[in-house]
């Protein structure tokens, strides 16, 4: 899902940069106000872990691959602000240090994976747990759905960004269904890994699932 340079035109690039910077500004302010040192420490450790798992590309026949994105896991563990910061750190290092994802597309990549994926997964998980209780079957369903829908909608956003850029000749009519469909399929794996990890953590280290603690800051 990492958009390289060359796909996005300057307006899409600028709009996505502005949206990501605005969310990032609010997130940093919220994090600073909360001063939850344990949760902030967890950001870099989780970001390091997600960075490592993203290096585990599972190659698929036909010359493509899938890897865990981790936005839903970060959201469920740390909430929408620290979850954003976690995935933002991963994307920033991937782009600037390893040229993975374009510099002109960094705003779009952050918007898709660190904001849309994170926020969607967080609200689905919170909604399920609040409505049906913090029980394991609920956690599995919520984490799976959060992981799957987060990736699917992030893929859809990616399709719109590419589709509305004039350099892509087929427009959103092609880019949107292709990117959404492909990520809806890949999102099943994301959902399964997210659900298994969340259930494991709730058994072994429940204090790390901050979105169940109820501290929204």
């Amino acid at each position: 899902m990492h958009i390289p340079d060359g796909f996005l035109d300057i307006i899409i690039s600028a709009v996505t940069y502005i949206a990501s910077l605005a969310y990032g500004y609010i997130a940093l302010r919220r994090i600073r106000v909360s001063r939850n040192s344990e949760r902030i420490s967890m950001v870099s450790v989780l970001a390091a872990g997600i960075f490592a798992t993203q290096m585990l590309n599972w190659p698929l026949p036909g010359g493509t691959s899938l890897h865990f994105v981790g936005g839903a896991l970060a959201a469920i563990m740390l909430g929408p602000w620290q979850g954003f910061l976690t995935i933002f750190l991963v994307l920033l290092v991937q782009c600037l240090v390893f040229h993975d994802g374009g510099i002109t597309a960094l705003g779009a990549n952050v918007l898709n994976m660190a904001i849309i994926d994170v926020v969607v997964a967080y609200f689905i998980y919170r909604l399920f747990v609040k409505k049906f209780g913090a029980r394991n079957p609920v956690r599995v369903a919520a984490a799976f759905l959060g992981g799957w829908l987060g990736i699917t909608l992030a893929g859809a956003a990616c399709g719109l960004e590419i589709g509305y850029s004039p350099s892509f000749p087929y427009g959103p009519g092609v880019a949107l269904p292709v990117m959404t469909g492909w990520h809806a399929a890949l999102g099943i794996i994301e959902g399964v890994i997210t659900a298994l990890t969340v259930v494991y953590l709730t058994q072994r280290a429940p204090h790390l699932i901050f979105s169940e603690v109820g501290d929204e800051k």
Partner: protein
Amino acid sequence: MNSFRKALIITLILVLISPIFGVILADSVGFHEPLDLVAEALNLQDWSESLNWTPLFDYTVPGLPAEVGYIVSGIIGIAIILVIGLAINRLASRRKD
């Protein structure tokens, strides 16, 4: 603090095995990023490839075999993330004057 240490150990193990997936198996199926393939098919110009800003392009380290370079890249990436995280933590916990 103990769970942080455990998480870091697991992360390092993941990096050590990562070339199996990111290099060896990827080469065996002729992996390319799907969007890179689309860009090539559509003749889109990725100007940044000719204006590369990092010696660690695509998780490689100049002079090292791809598998070793992938591991070294992983360790460098993790170290940078932890340093930035530490800086943010200090910044966030600093008292407002």
